[in-house]
């Protein structure tokens, strides 16, 4: 639950989309506390992303593009639209993976590997600094040209899958995320068209999470 809230607030806190011409962008946060302090009260976030997975299996990184939607406090859809259509849908504790090959979503809520990934995201996006410190060793660096947060999982079990996660941004919301996996693979995700304070209407929520979703309910 908090995952979504934190993620939303967090992205919100990262500021408006780069290049916005209205109010002056907030200054780059100087401390982690300041960064996290800005994560509050978002109504929803949407963004597009472009991802490059550097995998040992492949000569060249595999590219994908898609859209991210976050509904506070605990729902998120990570939707890949190219190549092929696939989604990771998170509703609270429930994690489902859907792709073109199977009409039925695969429930990954109790899949230990999936749980590692999801929990990592959730704690991060939750914006709960103390919970984040409990699960990750944090290294924050704020400069004039942007900020950088490196998270190293404290749990050896999680570290056996994810070595570390690096998030980067300028004055605005997150611009880049890099996940370093224990086996040497690496995923770089760049966000664009970040819309903070997005208000999801019921139709949009149903489209994202299904007709009986409780996401977005007070």
């Amino acid at each position, binding site marked *: 639950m908090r995952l979504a809230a934190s993620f939303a607030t967090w992205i919100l806190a990262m500021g408006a989309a780069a290049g916005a011409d209205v109010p002056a962008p907030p200054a780059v946060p100087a401390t982690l506390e300041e960064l996290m302090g800005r994560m509050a009260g978002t109504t929803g976030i949407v963004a597009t992303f472009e991802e490059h997975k550097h995998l040992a*299996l492949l000569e060249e990184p595999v590219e*994908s593009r898609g859209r991210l939607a976050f509904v506070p406090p605990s729902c998120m859809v990570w939707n890949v639209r190219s190549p*092929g259509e696939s989604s990771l849908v998170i509703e609270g504790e429930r994690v489902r993976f859907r792709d073109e090959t199977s009409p039925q979503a695969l429930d990954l*809520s109790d*899949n*230990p590997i999936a749980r590692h990934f999801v929990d990592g995201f959730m704690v991060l996006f939750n914006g709960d600094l103390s919970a984040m410190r409990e699960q990750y060793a944090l290294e924050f660096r704020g400069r004039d040209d942007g900020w950088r947060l490196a998270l190293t999982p404290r749990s050896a079990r999680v570290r056996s899958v994810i070595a570390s996660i690096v998030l980067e941004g300028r004055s605005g919301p997150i611009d880049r995320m890099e996940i370093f996996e224990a086996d040497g693979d690496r995923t770089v995700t760049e966000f664009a068209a970040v819309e903070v304070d997005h208000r999801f209407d019921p139709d949009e929520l149903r489209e994202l999470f299904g007709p009986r979703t409780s996401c977005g309910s007070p």
Partner: protein
Amino acid sequence: MRISLKPRSLALLAGIAGMAVFCSLQMQLESNVTKFMPDGGGSELAALSRQLADSELTRTMILAIRGPSLPISLEAGEALAARLRENDEVKWVRNGVDPMEIESLYELYFPRRHYFLSDDPEHEIPLRLSTPALVERARALKRELASPGAFLFKRIAAADPLGAFADVVSRVRDERPTLRLEGNRFVSLDGDYAILMLATRASAFDHGRQVPLLAEIRRDVDDLSRELEVPLTLEQSGTNRFAADAQSAIRGDVYVVCGLSFLGVALVFMTLVGSLRAFVIVFLPTLTGILVAISVGLIFFGGFDGLTLAFGTVLIGVATDYSVHALVHHRLATGGETASATLRRLRPTLFYGAITTIASFVGLAFTSFPAFREISTFSIVGLAASLATTFFVLPELLDLAPPLPRRARRMAERLGGLGHGVGRPLLWQGVPAALCVVLFVFAVPRIRWVDDMSAWTRIDPELLAEDQRVRSRVTPFDTSRFVVVLADDEQTAIAMNSRVRERLEPLLDDGGLTGVRSLHALLWSEDLQRRNLRALLAEEDLYPRVVAAFAKEGFQADAFEPFGEALASEPPAPLTLADLRDSSLGPLLSSMVIPLDRQLAVITHLRGIESISRVAQALDGLEGVRVFEQRAFLNDVYAEFRSTTAEQIVVGSLLVAAILLARYRRLRPALAALLPSILVALTLIDGFAFLGTGLNLLHVMTLIMVLGMGVDYGIFIVDTAHGRTDFGVTFLSLLVSCLTTFLVFGTLAVASQPVLRAVGTTAGVGILLAFFYSPLALLVLGRPGEEARRA
């Protein structure tokens, strides 16, 4: 009045007390439907049916729990599951997908993934390994790696570029019940209820253990409702609920009927015999018989089915007639005859009465139905014990009975005159009797048999509606119609089961079925597994071709070394049933693989059957494969057994006739003794046929008892009605017997359960008819005429 008991009586009373204590301590009543299914040398399908009736299929319950919101429902479901796991009566509880199952799936199947590539390996594997197919597979893998579920595929892609393990997972997933999952917890299709499934340790028909368990489940939900401070709705589905409800209803009926009949019998005794003490005395031999039969049953069978006990007790109840007969004859005997002398005089009559009764239902002891064998054994033992008590102890006790009131003697005289119509041809019995014989010809074609066992008990409509609601929320598989493969060995059964799955595929595609649960999703025959591996390894240059095809799509040349190593290494042994049983997937097998005495049954469960004949058609020609409709099958079995039992009545009647002929050595008295029972049978059948009453096995069973009593009445008349006075005394004893029997069993006709109503109607009407027709024995004997001449 001071009562002094002689040693035999004291020993009897001590014995009764001892047995009563033993029985009350050891008594285990059950309602085991499997005892009403054939066993022994019967067909394998009968054995299968019997085992299924008491398998995990009937021991499984589905619980649906609902709170104000789904998260609360799930929380309550989780808490209830935790409580039920602590319950000793619960074998297992599932309220979601166990992560261990997924791990187990990986451990079992990943090393053997190349055994499970195709149902048709010689044809499909070469196609799958063609270069265009491999390139297409490489593209698909790349798409999977680009997806947010990449972590699922990446782990195994290097060793399984062909996606063999993903196929296994997909097959298993496709054949799971169509429950929704919320955080891996089962949720009803409508998304409102948390769903739990549990299996009970005890049989669904074990009333003594199921009733407390059902109460505990209800209590647990009430407790949770208080703890969570929310209203919770619980709805359940399970065979145990119907069995418990039916047994409780039967018990309720029996209590009411017992109370009413006891009052009625007491009234009859007070009116005709004038003493309740006499009632106690005449009931003692029957009580002894019942207790001996129960004790023997407990020692040798370990427990009783409710219906066995009910029927057995009814049959032993016939013995009460013997002591009533002795009491009335003793107390109305002329010349101060002692009780011992009366019993000596009546001994042949009572002995042959008992023997003919036993003969009429001894055939049940040789049926393939355990329940009927139990009933037969129970009754024979009980009747023998009752008769022994009547002969050896009753004489002492009869002296303790007060004299009969004057009105009894007067009544005997009147009855003597009435029945011994001094030359009158007993018109008012003879005419209806003749009419019944004539009508019987027209009645036979009108007889309507109802062999559906489910009609034996009345199902509570609310319970049924709740059960259907719960089932519709989880769309489980049809529990009474499925496909069964019977084979002598495991491998043949598994191989044939795979062919069944293959033949059902078109029905799944066109909506003839909405789903199947087949062992094929988990296990293929060793031969098919080896053929898969052979077909894979038969491909020339497989590894380099795979590497080349995947390289075209941008995969590293050395990325698939684990796959190459797997191809080069010694393969593991094919997966066996034993491997599956020993894994955490083992519980999934309990409803799919059922070892029988000489064969193995593999069951394919069906869902959404559009037409069962289409299913049968699809499987036509497969050896050892049948579409099994349990209800229809059992109905056929019961129809056959009912027909056999009806034939047994004829055979039993012939046996009784032979005994009577052997005893009287003349046709006329033998026929006279038999006549009342024959007329009872004909009249009852006429009545049922013309009233349109559907007859079942229980009507036939009860008819056996009534006929046994009818023959007794005939024997009593033939043996003891030597003149008007004797006839009056005998007729009075028959009247007392008839009224008490009628009050005991006839009152069952008002019971709520059809099973008891069938017994009650047949027994109640039958016994009145036996009394009504009994004077006709005299007509056959020709004694009224003789006496009239003498007069």
